[in-house]
Structures are given as C-alpha cells and as structure tokens.
C-alpha cells in the first residue's frame, strides 16, 4: 500500500474513532445542559464491568407505554414516547407514536414489541437506554444495597434524567429523593 494513501486512510479512521467518542460526549452534554429534567422510578443493584468499572444496574419501574390501536412498530424499530408527570412527580410515558411528537418532551427508544396486558390494553414495551449508573468502586456496592435495605423494606429509588430532542442522559441517582452521594454521606453509619 502506498504510504501516503495509508496515512490518509489512517487519518480517516482516527477521526472516526474520535467522532465516536467525542460525538457521545457532545450528544450527552447537549441533553444535560439544555434538557428538561425528569425523575424515573427504578430498582437498583450493583455489578461490575471490566472496562467501565462499578455501576448500579438500573431497572426501570416503567418500561412500557400505552399504544394506540393504529400503532404498528416492529421489535427493534424506533418509537417515540412522550413524557408525562404522575401524581407523585415521577415521569411516566404517554401514548406511544411512530412519529416525532409535535410538542412536549419525549424519548426516542427502541421498541421491544407490542403486547396487551391482563386487561387487554395495548402496550408497547421499550428498551430503556439508561441501564447503568457508574460510580466510584468503593461507593457503588453501598449504593446498590441502599435501594434494598430500608427499614420499610425497600427505599424509593429514582434517577434524574435530562431530556432533549429525544435523547435522555442520566444526571443523578436518588434514594428517598436525596442525591446518592449526599445520601451515602448522611447514612455512613447505618448502611
């Protein structure tokens, strides 16, 4: 291979590598800086990833949205879910649609299929993009336990998500409405 051509190709590959890493930064920063803030209820546990360290694995309490009769999306395809607020102030999903909503905040997610529930209402199941909250390796196990070890059984856990243009990025993890780092500091003795 010609050296100049090889170098040119390498520059292209290097730019792609930078763009993948940098693009993810830009996308997340836009959502975090300018996005609207929501809180989703979750159930945390604590595993480890060889490359990215310890994290709190997040299972969303809400991972489906009501689907109108005419909605027909294949598994793995994009679907748009408008975000609404429930009585307790947590985020829930409104009626799913295949098109981008005209107004209001929404998430663009992958559909997992459409199934009726026990009462026959149609729901579209989605793969939530926020599945991990990465934390300091010493704190993550405590954070994972915190969600389970409350006196009343389970504590209320939630994540704060900033949403902009269909993209959501996790901002913080909350236990009983207190940001996780603050909660861990306050409950250092009895956890």
């Amino acid at each position, binding site marked *: 291979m010609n050296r100049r051509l090889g170098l040119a190709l390498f520059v292209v590959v290097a730019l792609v590598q930078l763009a993948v*890493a940098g693009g*993810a*930064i830009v996308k997340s920063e836009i959502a*975090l800086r300018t996005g609207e803030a929501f809180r989703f209820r979750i159930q945390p546990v604590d595993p480890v990833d060889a*490359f990215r360290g310890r994290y709190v694995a997040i299972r969303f309490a809400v991972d489906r949205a009501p689907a109108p009769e005419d909605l027909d999306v294949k598994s793995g395809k994009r679907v748009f879910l408008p975000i609404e607020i429930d009585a307790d102030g947590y985020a829930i999903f409104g009626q799913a649609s295949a098109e981008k909503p005209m107004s209001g905040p929404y998430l663009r997610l992958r559909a997992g299929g459409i199934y009726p529930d026990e009462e026959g209402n149609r729901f579209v199941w989605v793969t939530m993009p926020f599945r991990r909250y990465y934390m300091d390796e010493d704190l*993550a196990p405590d954070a994972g336990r915190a969600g389970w070890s409350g006196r009343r059984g389970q504590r209320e856990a939630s994540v704060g998500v900033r949403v902009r243009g269909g993209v959501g*990025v996790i901002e913080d993890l909350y236990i009983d409405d207190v940001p996780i780092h603050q909660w861990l500091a306050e409950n250092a003795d009895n956890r």
Partner: protein
Amino acid sequence: MGRLSIRWLLSELPKLEAEGVIDASAADRLRTHYAEETSGSGRRLVVAIFAVFGALLIGGGVILLLAHNWEAFGRGTRAAIALAPLLASQAMVGWVLVRKGESTAWREGSATLLALTVATAVALVDQTYHTGGDLESFLWRWSLLLAPLPWLLNSTAVAMLFLAALTWWAGAAKVEGSQILMMWPLAAAVVPHLVHVMRSERRGLRAANLQWAIAIFLCVAAGLGLDNRVPGLWIVIYVGLFALMITLGAVNRRGEEGLWRRPLEMVGITGSIVMWLILSFDEPWRHIGWKHIYSTEKFLEVSSWLDEVLAVGLPLAAIVAMALLLDRGRHRLHLLWGLSVPLVAVVWPLTAATDSRWIGAVAFTLLLFVVGVATIVEGVRRQNLGTVNLGMLVVALLVVVRFFDSGFGFILKGLAFILVGIGFLVANVLLSRSLRAGEEEAK
C-alpha cells in the same frame, strides 16, 4: 530464511567444506552472513515483543485506573481525560506510519496502544454519561473501531486483540439472545492483513501468532455462530472444520518446525481429539437431524441457512483439500486423521434417519481407537517420539473415558478392556520381533 533452515545450513557447512563442495572462505562468508542475520532478527523480535507487552500493560493499566471512576473530576475534565490518550496514541501511530513504518516494534507497539486507548475513550465516555448500555454494546463498538486497524497499520497484535474482542462480543450477545450474524463479515476484516503477512513473512512469528488467533477464533465462532435450528449440525461442522485445519496446516508446513509454528495442525488435532471423545458418548447423538427441527422458537432464516451451508461445505472442503493437496506417502498420518469426515458423512444421516444413538458412539469409539493405534505405529515407523506420544495420548484418553462411562455394563466393559489389553501385548511381541529382524538386517 527461517532460523531453523539457517541452523541447518550452518550445521551442513563443515561437511560441505570437507567434501570440497565449497572452499573455506566461502564457508566463512556464509557463516558471517547468516550469523548476522540470525542475531539481528532475534534482537528485533525481542524488541517487538517487549513493545507490544509494554503497550498492552500501559493501556490495560489506564483502563483499570479509569474504571475506578473518578467522580470528583467534573464532566469536562473527564471528557478531556477520555480523549487525550486517544489523541496522543493516534498522533504516535501517525508519526510511526510516516517515520518508522519499517520497524515492527514501533508499529505493533503503537498500534496496540491505540487499540487500548480507543477502548479507554469509549469506556470513559460511557462511564461519565451513564450511557452505552451493556458490555455487549461496548464490545461491539470497540470491535467496529478496531476492524480497519490490523490492515491499515499492518499490526498482528491488534488483529489478535480485535478477534478476541469480537469473540467476546459474540459470546456476550449470544447469552443475551441477540443475533450475531454480523460477526462473520466483521471478522473478514483480518483477511487482508492475513494475506499480507502470509506473503511477506510466511515463516515468521507474526504469521504463526495470527494463525493461532484465527484458528482459535474459528473454533469458538463456529459454535457461537450456529443457529441450531436443525439439532446436531454442529457435529458435522466441527468434524469438517478440524479435518480442514489439519489438512491446510500439513500443506502449509515445510520440514520440521516447532509446535508453535504449526497452529492449524495443533488446533485441528486438539480439537479433533476433544470432539471425537465427546462424540464417543451417545448423548450428543440424541435427537439429531431433520426429524427434530425446532419449530417452537423463532429463528433467523439467513442464520439457519448459514448452518446448513457450513454443514455441507466444511466436510466437502476438507475432503477436496485432502484429495488435492495431501501426498499419500508423506501425509499418511494426516489422511488418517481425516477419516473422521467420511465417517461422519455416513454416521450422521444414518443416526438422523434411525434415531439410534449408539451408531455414532460406537463409530467414534472405534475411530479414536484405530486412529490412536495407527498414529503409534506410524510414529514407530518414522522413529518420531512426538507422534508415538500423540497416539498413546489418544488411546489413553479413550481408555479413561470408557472406563468411567456408565453407558455400558461392567462385564461388557471388563471383557472389552481385557481383549484390547491382550491385543496390545500381542502387537508388542510382533512389533519387537520385526524391529529385531530389521536391526539384524541392518547389521
């Protein structure tokens, strides 16, 4: 020229000199010429190996440091930390491409570092923004970003890393129940590099390492890639794959080389022994073939077609390769090991048609025994201790496996063991007699 050939040539020089084929000054010139070449190449090799390991350890260390998760740094700092090592190693690779393209140590070392800093960058961005999903998704993105590097940077170390990442991804994705058909086209990214290395330094260490990586990748990938819609196809595919590896390895080999330089043969033979031992039980033969096609689960059409193509193609390719490429005299042993292919071609359809599990189990028990004994005999004939040991290993493993096999009654097993034992003793007597006769004749 390979180091073994050079050693051979140098050892021949005194004889050539004594017989007057070359004069003393020519012999000395040859000695100095090749002495320089061997010592230089050895040093270069060590430097390259150290460069790769240095890069691997540093890159790995950076990944571990960042995995600790330094939450105290703000998002901006962490983004900078993610991109800085990547930029630095890209610059280094660029500099190596321009200035040091000829140096294997620089090329392999800097490429390895780049491969790991790509992982670092992607991982740290995922960590900072809590994005990126499962390990599977991370490994997929990393594999994609690595794919062009082996060819572009002419780096075998990165090719090995790439195949490892890709295999890991396929395993993780398979566990999650995702489709992994994309593994094959992506894996093809190492082919241009393979062609390059085989052309320029066929006998070199890089060629050997790359072949090891590819052989092991194929073994794992063949299993992971299967859709398993038709149960039992893996039997035919693996038997074909290992026979093909043994054949291609034998063809590719020149003279006596160390075991490390014969990756295809090594992986093919090891794989064959393991596979045949498994197949000598009747369990793998239960419910195989077209009568038991899974219809309850969802399968991807393309993927199940690929299964069938491989199941027909690999054994066929092995047979054709054996027929065309192997020499009946020189490669007797390899042809013997290839017997598994016609055997499975008969036994598999027979079992599928009749649902009799014992056919396959008995056939592969006999195959192990015949191939083991024949390998011992061939080893004795060629006076090659390694081959004798290989044959003994096969027979010994077969004996151990059958001894603990609960599929047969104790009386049957006992009698069979005694009969085979007597057979060995008789063979021993006959063999030593013929050896003695041969020695006397030689005298």
